[in-house]
């Protein structure tokens, strides 16, 4: 669009301010992680690396980290399977209720997390008689992770023509062979990108987790939340926070690279498409 120099400069200024707004809090927490004082006064009197070594020594934080990784991996595996199946049905077939399926997949993230959390926890404890545990957390996470995989795979399948699969069938391949040698290779990177995002989403989640986790267990976000109110632990929490940011950003960056290589564009979470012409964000 043709804009006057002044308009362009103004727009740049707004974008700069917007980016500052987005990044300042992340930078501030980053600095606090090196704060040499236990009191959170700005500016910090000096810098230290102590909190990081204390964070690594903290057994409860380490355990929470492992729990988070475990939950994230299992939830991602379930979401990979269910999301891919649903995506293949919706992108490659026409059937009654097709719109409903795509709506249902989005619903767990279109509704507030607290609704999903309360509903699942209620069903587990009141109807099924299953005590809350890590397993129930995994079920909750998998439910809202499905959409991330689904969106990535649907976007990919829409961009690759179904005629390849027809050609494969015409040449005598059976359904499994067609999937193994034609469909799967074409959506491999979409699956990888989706899986990375699903993991990041699960790793970071706290609201559904709060309602579905057993009494004695902690994921890393829950650990942070519980220690937040203990002033003594707060600097360690800041150090853990920085570690968490790094762990969750790496998969997102990789996912973005993966889907860009295949020509996809933007990306977000929520409805979580990384890929897209058709399905941008959340």
């Amino acid at each position, binding site marked *: 669009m043709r804009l006057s120099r002044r308009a362009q400069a103004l727009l740049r200024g707004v974008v700069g301010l917007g980016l500052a707004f*987005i990044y300042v809090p992340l930078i501030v927490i980053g600095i606090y992680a090196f704060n040499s004082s236990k009191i959170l006064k700005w500016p910090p009197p000096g810098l230290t690396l102590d909190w990081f070594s204390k964070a690594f020594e903290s057994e409860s934080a380490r355990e929470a980290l492992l729990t988070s990784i475990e939950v994230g991996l299992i939830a991602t595996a379930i979401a990979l399977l269910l999301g891919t199946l649903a995506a293949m049905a919706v992108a490659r077939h026409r059937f009654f209720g097709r719109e409903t399926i795509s709506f249902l997949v989005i619903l767990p993230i279109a509704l507030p997390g607290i609704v999903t959390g309360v509903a699942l926890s209620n*069903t587990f404890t009141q109807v099924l008689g299953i005590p809350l545990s890590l397993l129930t957390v995994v079920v909750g996470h998998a439910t809202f992770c499905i959409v991330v995989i689904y969106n990535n795979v649907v976007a990919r399948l829409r961009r690759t023509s179904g005629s390849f699969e027809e050609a494969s069938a015409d040449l005598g391949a059976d359904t499994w062979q067609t999937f193994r040698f034609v469909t799967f290779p074409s959506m491999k990177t979409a699956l990888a990108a989706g899986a990375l995002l699903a993991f990041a989403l699960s790793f970071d989640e706290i609201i559904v987790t709060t309602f579905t986790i057993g009494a004695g267990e902690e994921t890393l976000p829950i650990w942070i939340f519980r220690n937040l109110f203990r002033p003594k632990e707060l600097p360690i929490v800041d150090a853990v926070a920085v570690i968490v*940011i790094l762990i969750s950003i790496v998969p997102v960056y990789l996912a973005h690279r993966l889907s860009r290589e295949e020509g996809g564009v933007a990306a977000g979470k929520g409805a979580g498409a990384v890929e897209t012409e058709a399905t941008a964000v959340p």
Partner: protein
Amino acid sequence: MTTEAVAVKRPAGRRLAGLFHGRPGLQVGTLLAGPSAWLVVLYLGSLAVLLITAFWTVNSLSGEVVKGFSLENFESLVNEPVYREIVWRTVRTAVLVTLTDAVIAFPIAFYMAKVATRRGRAILVIAVLMPLWSSYLVKVLSWRTMLSEDGVINWALNPLGLHGPGYGLTAVWLVMSYLWLPYMILPIYAGLERIPDSLISASEDLGAKPFTTFRRVILPLAFPAVVAGSIFTFSLTLGDFITVRLVSNSQFIGTVIASSITNDLPFAAALALVPIVVMIAYLSVARKLGAFEHV
């Protein structure tokens, strides 16, 4: 050799695969069995149970859940001014946060989609994307320290003779606008990117001033994308309780659900229906406005 004999010699896996050949109905059924068992039976089923639970009560003496039928929870929701005020406060904040994010997000998305160079665009997409995915809780924690009495905000404002908002409703509005901003930027960016440059050129060639082009061409075409983004900013605000607890003493729908779930599950269930109803209404309007293509 008859075809039957050939069929017998084929390994079981291939025979199974052959079964699907030319039977699209069976293919769809098999593909959807797992996902629909999970999403329909488990997820929708749980929402249905939640609806039923809202009619249960708690025995005030034993504290046990009474699985009967009573409108008690709904009556207290409607009749007690406290709850009306809480619902209203939550919805009002959700509207404010959504409007704030739309206003901040639009110029950023516009610059990304229509003004920046290819390279600049790629960098900006990553710059917006990364914080979207970096830990929610960490970001709230950072705001909590920034807003505190000795925090960055007061430190920066003091020389100007000003004082930051501290903890409270303003803080909730500010932090939530911050948290959900990328959810708004990305759909608007994708929506704007889909508007062909030729349309904008045509408007300019026909003599429209930049502002007219913006108002008559760009805004109407991008509006569904704004609505798509607003689904997330609105829904996320409606259900949040962590941010509310960390930067204010206010009660929101989420905080009341979270604190009543252990001792009054049926009431928590009834209250959880409020965001569901609000979101269903919101989603149906959003759908009419064509937002779903942008989600």
